[in-house]
């Protein structure tokens, strides 16, 4: 449980503006170090994020925009904690 993994080995952040990362392989529960713009943060992932799914890089409040590829892909429909899966259960398209 104390092991801290490097998030970059498991997930990819596509743009500096993004507040989600996409799992390239399954991201198992545990603690992950994330380095962005020379800033280190630690994320706690409580439940497995399957490959292909997104996880929040920071807390995202209800109604806030979700960024991927540097652009808005939808709005949070509830508060999302950092490290949680971001998908149709807690975000919605703006179209």
């Amino acid at each position, binding site marked *: 449980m104390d092991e801290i993994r490097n998030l970059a080995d498991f997930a990819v952040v596509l743009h500096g503006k993004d507040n989600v990362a996409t799992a390239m392989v399954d991201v198992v529960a545990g603690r992950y170090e994330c380095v962005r713009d020379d800033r280190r943060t630690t994320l706690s992932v409580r439940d497995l994020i399957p490959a292909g799914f997104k996880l929040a890089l920071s807390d995202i409040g209800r109604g806030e925009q979700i960024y991927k590829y540097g652009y808005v*892909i939808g709005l949070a429909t509830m508060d999302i904690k950092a490290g949680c899966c971001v*998908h149709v259960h807690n975000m919605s398209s703006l179209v």
Partner: protein
Amino acid sequence: MSAIRLKGYRWGDDVFGIRKHLVVMASVSCANSIVERIAATDHDVIPITHQHGCTHIADDTEQVLRTLAGTCSNPNVGAVLLVGLGCETLSVETIASRMNSTGKMVETLVIQQIGSIERIMDVATQTLHKMKAFLSIRQRCDVEIGGLMVGLECGGSDPFSGITANPAVGLISDRLVELGATVILSEIPEMIGAEAALEPRIRDEDVRQRLFARIRDYVAYAKTRGCDLRGANPTPGNMRAGLSSIEEKSLGCIVKGGHSEIREFVQYAQRPTSKGMVVMDTPGNDNESLTGLAAGGAHLMLFTTGVGTPLGNPVAPVVKISSNTRTYERMKDFIDIDAGRIVGGLGIESVADEIFSLTVDVCNGRQTASERNCCREFAINRIGLSF
């Protein structure tokens, strides 16, 4: 970069193909079985049949005509036998007169005029003999990569499409544009929600307005049919794989168009006049979109896929690129390149280099998986009712 050597078949000063196909095409669906029977007599013949050619009107007729004539005009076609019934809206003469037939051999055959099946087959056999003789003396010669037209397509996307295969193809798009070639991005419904990413790439106000109006048309159409796009696209399969919104799907989709300026917006099956990046008005339906791209003059198409598909085209080779290794391993016979290796740490640049080198090889004659499998789907995008 070392010199790129392309060898193609030159039909005219500025027209070259990468294949020299012999096509037998039905002008109307009533001629389909006869076309298939003629093509069955010779392995070198590519039959093209479809459901249209009659009982459509106005702009719908124009679109079908543009597609049929455009397919025959594709630079990979060296000879065409048009087979008509005789009473259809789009006669063989109408299609032939709309073709760019520079340097090609074009013949017509009308079923009602000839009458008997025996005589139809005799006439067809003689015509095919002449055409094969004509094509046999055409040899590959040096051609310029700047004259190349490449279509882009994706089908059966997954969350890796926008991270592996599409960015790799995006690098190829930019490279081809730099080399003076034409690259066509397609599938308007898969631009819904990605307008903010497209906008900075469009300088021409007319292109921007027409393209964005067309994207809005699709959203409006879905609404008038009582369909909430949020339930339909991403598809249930897309969502099970992790895609959460149409914006996310669209943004991942347009990545394959790279970063260069979008200079022209053409209708379905319309030939671009600009070099560089062009958008064609095609639907997300892969089959109809590929048909439109080839009818617009694309020499070949780069097709990225998440779940895998055998789709090809009768006249233009389709290069299949998988977004993940699992799909590639399962469907190797149908896929040319595995971009999924990017997940394992292979650089996007390396995969792009492979795609580029394969593209050059395919131009020079190497068969793609879709060609080896004789996948030759043809489907025209209709815009109206049949009467």
